[in-house]
């Protein structure tokens, strides 16, 4: 489904992603790991064309991902949840869901509420007034409103209490099994995330230094040396 060929992404002189080639199929459950600044967010953004200065090629379902055309690329069927500021604080929960849903069907709204009942209770609350975990749920629901085939999530559990981390990751797992939506997940909570994903890649200095089954990464004696 995703084909990444010799992808290099730069911010000025800084090379954030360096010659990465990857491919993954529909229904994928993949984790992207690596220490701070290793290029995880940049790689994820490249998958939707969110980085301007890139070379190499990214394609989704045979269609090229064009740099700087995020709004078009995502309509190919990609849900993207950015690392920060992924909800609209000045709008209520329901209004947030309509922003995404305006290109889709209102029956999606019911589905989003079924998936996250808490959001229905909070539908008239301003998103900016919700707690971090609640906002994270809303962000995932927003991305789902576009009916994506694959969901890209940048640290969906950042800053959440361990119990809520389980909760969010559990919901993602459910989305994957129930809706068949692929998951590509950037995570700092490596161990918790390894329970959810089946394939893991590790980035270091913008290069892929590990690509294999999540069990394989978990079994690595020197797991912590990677991070």
């Amino acid at each position, binding site marked *: 489904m995703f084909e990444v060929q010799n992808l290099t992404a730069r911010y000025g002189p800084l090379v954030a992603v360096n010659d990465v080639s990857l491919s993954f199929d529909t229904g994928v459950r993949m984790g992207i790991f690596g220490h701070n600044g290793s290029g995880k967010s940049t790689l994820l953004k490249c998958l939707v064309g969110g980085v301007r200065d890139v070379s190499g090629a990214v394609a989704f379902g045979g269609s090229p991902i064009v740099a700087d055309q995020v*709004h078009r690329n995502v309509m190919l069927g990609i849900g993207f949840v950015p690392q920060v*500021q992924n909800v609209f604080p*000045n*709008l209520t929960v329901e*209004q947030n869901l309509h922003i*995404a849903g305006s290109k889709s069907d209102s029956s999606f709204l019911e589905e989003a509420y079924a998936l996250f009942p808490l959001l229905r209770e909070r539908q008239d609350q301003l998103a900016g007034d919700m707690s971090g975990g609640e906002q994270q749920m809303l962000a995932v629901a927003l991305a789902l409103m576009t009916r994506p085939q694959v969901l890209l999530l940048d640290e969906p559990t950042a800053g959440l209490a361990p119990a809520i981390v389980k909760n969010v990751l559990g919901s993602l797992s459910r989305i994957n099994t129930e809706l068949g939506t692929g998951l590509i997940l950037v995570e700092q909570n490596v161990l918790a995330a390894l329970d959810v994903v089946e394939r893991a890649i590790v980035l270091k200095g913008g290069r892929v230094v590990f690509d294999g089954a999540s069990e394989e990464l978990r079994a690595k004696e020197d797991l912590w040396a990677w991070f």
Partner: protein
Amino acid sequence: MEYLLTVMVLIGINVILATSFNLILGYGGLMSVAHPIFYAIGAYCSGLLAIHLQIPVPLSILIGAGIAMVLSFGVSLPSLRVSGDYLVIASIGFQLGILHVINNLEFTGAAGGLTNIPVLNEGPSRSLVFVLLIAVVAACAVMLVGWIVEGDYGRAITAMRNDEEAFSALGRNAMNIKIVLFAIGSGMAGLAGALYAHYFAYVTPEQFGIFTSAALLTMVVVGGAATTWGPLVGAVLLTTLPQAITFLGLPVSIMAPLQGVIYTTLVISFLFARPQGLTGGTRGGGGLEAWSASAAFRARRRAE
């Protein structure tokens, strides 16, 4: 009486300007300060068309507004690349650049200004008729902006202002919204300029400089950014206040700086004491909160 009517014309012009500026700056969160230059473009284009091509005034007014609308691409296209602080700087450059051209072209009357602009209407009750006209146009401006920011499109504008990246991640095109906001807002400013020109029959480049940007900004902030009535309240207040001060009969050497001091004091006190402006509520993102929400939100998310 004539004096009062003239003040009312100025109020009407400023209501249109502040309301349209609010569409761009308040609702759109697009930090462009070049609004007065579209006011100038409307005034000069309409005036020049009526003077040199003898185009009927009502038609030249509409063409002037249309040209301002088209030239808004000069600011909206760069704003697709730069935003925030950079847009402030880019827009100042645009404003000063065009002002410099106007200031140095003989054709536009250069620094001396454009004179002998045909007036829209004549006759004994010319001012009264013009006041009524401008009141209708100002009311339409307020309603038009109110209508744009209502409903689905208004929510999309808010979402874009809150976060462009998240907005485009949902398949929505921020570029279209920016272009539309700049075009409508600038067209309205051009209309205000053309109306001004064909009432006062005279415009000078210095009317459209940074001081006017500051005055409009003050009207929007004091009244309440991203609110429907805020710019109207701000425009009425800040147009009448300086007029009221003239009645104190102070010498010009005190008057001119006093006006600056009042504007500055107002902006700063509102920033601290009432960021939502006179009309903004405390919730829902009216006033300066409309802009600061994203920043505050980011800080909170980081802290959590």
